[in-house]
């Protein structure tokens, strides 16, 4: 059981705000299913789901890019929907089912999208890749992207600064609808 807290921004907090902030806030137990395993962590209320996954559960495949909902690197699946783990609190997700990039493969069999990303050279530095793949899995489950233009539009929440976007869309098109778009 880990107790985690955020220290990083304490120095920048207005001292008045810090003085008047409530004291003696106890960590809560958050129980959720992460990558098919039921897990409990002790977290303080202001810990993001992203920090809980990375720091308490060592799921560092979930990437902390901007931490402000602008880049999509922290995308995970929550109850089957793609969400940004940086913009939600771990305590808010108690009872949920979370899937991170570490949980998309079946034992040693890569998820078809993981294989497609390799086959289509769909990453360079790889930092955005876990979020891209989780997002694409969520998008395929939503079933709203029919054309390549719609895939591009519905993947716009995941930024790639290396410029691999074209190959990312190629990889998704190759897998979507059972590979009929390849």
């Amino acid at each position, binding site marked *: 059981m880990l107790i985690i807290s955020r220290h990083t921004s304490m120095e920048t907090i207005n001292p008045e705000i810090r003085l008047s902030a409530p004291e003696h806030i106890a960590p809560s137990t958050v129980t959720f299913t992460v990558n098919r395993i039921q897990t409990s962590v002790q977290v303080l209320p202001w810990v993001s789901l992203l920090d809980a996954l990375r720091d308490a559960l060592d799921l560092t495949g979930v990437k902390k890019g901007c931490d*402000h909902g602008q880049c999509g690197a922290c995308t995970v699946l929550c109850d089957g929907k793609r*969400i940004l783990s940086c913009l939600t609190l771990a305590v808010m997700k108690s009872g949920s089912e979370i899937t991170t990039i570490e949980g998309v493969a079946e034992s040693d069999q890569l998820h078809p999208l993981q294989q497609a990303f390799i086959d289509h050279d769909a990453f360079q530095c790889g930092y955005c890749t876990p979020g891209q793949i989780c997002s694409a899995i969520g998008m395929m489950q939503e079933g709203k992207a029919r054309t390549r233009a719609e895939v591009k*539009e519905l993947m716009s929440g995941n930024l790639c600064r290396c410029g691999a976007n074209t190959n990312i869309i190629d990889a998704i098109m190759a897998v979507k609808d059972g590979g009929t778009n390849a």
Partner: protein
Amino acid sequence: MHNFFYTRANSIEEAIDGIRVDSAAKYVAGGTNLIDLLKYNIERADVLVDVNHVEVFPDAEQMADGCLRLSAFMTNADTAYHPLVEKKYPLLSEAILAGASAQIRNMATNGGNLLQRTRCYYFYDPAMPCNKREPGSGCPALNGYNRMMAILGTSSECIAVFPSDMCVALAALGAVVEVEGPSGQRHIPFSEFHRLPGRTPHLDNNLEAGEIITAICLPPEGFSRNYAYLKLRDRNSYAFALVSVALALEMDGECIREARIALGGVAHKPWRVPDAEDFLQGREATPGNFAAAADLILQGAQAFEHNGFKIELAKKAIVRAGKMALHPETHLPGAQPPSFENL
């Protein structure tokens, strides 16, 4: 982000009880804007009351009077893709899908969409003064970098714009906001929900302390045949509007029986001018008539150093949205806009 307590409410009543009116308690639903602002220490809360688990009856309910009642707790994505919304209120679907990203739309709720704060750079920078963040501290946007700022309804204290896309469509459709609070339930017409900055730019809307949005009611007329949401921005997706237009027409042959036009990205609230809509009534849906309506809508527009382009952009966007409304097939992502040779 400073420390706060967290509590879950299981009903609206519990949520309202959980907000101590005189303390810095806040409701949290999707959290996509609030949690970000807490991280920047722009918003502060001593208590977060999580309203994601309140029991609500159907997400979207067809009422006996023909209205569609959308739960405030429904996500933006579920709303945009709801069969009744897609069929009867496609303008609302399109506006929602023009905003944010798929991940954020999966989290953000309808109530929260109405309550999001401006994305003014100065509001987001605690090192700068901002009358919205700290009343009385000043507005650096007035003489600063104000390219994204408002051109209509500004005051000498604030020129921020309201960033929502969804709300531009809700304004055009004439939605009604249902709220509950310590003193009971009330219904607020959409045009009266958000405020202009005036002398109180720290107030974005007319909610009373402790009140919570419970639903958004859409009137029976959904303008599902002739509508357009045109959003103009610096990149093609996942960016806030420079100017957006929600335009809906009810046609009677070549003539307009009823027109609705709301602008986003130009003011502290979605901007509607009834005179312009009245002008179009009974007239033909021609570029010339839309241009004349646009002049009425932009009457009194005031540009600042870097955003003068928005006035012309808004006028042309209205004319183009008018043409798009007559050709809904031009709305699909990747679709080519209709020819504008005659405009």
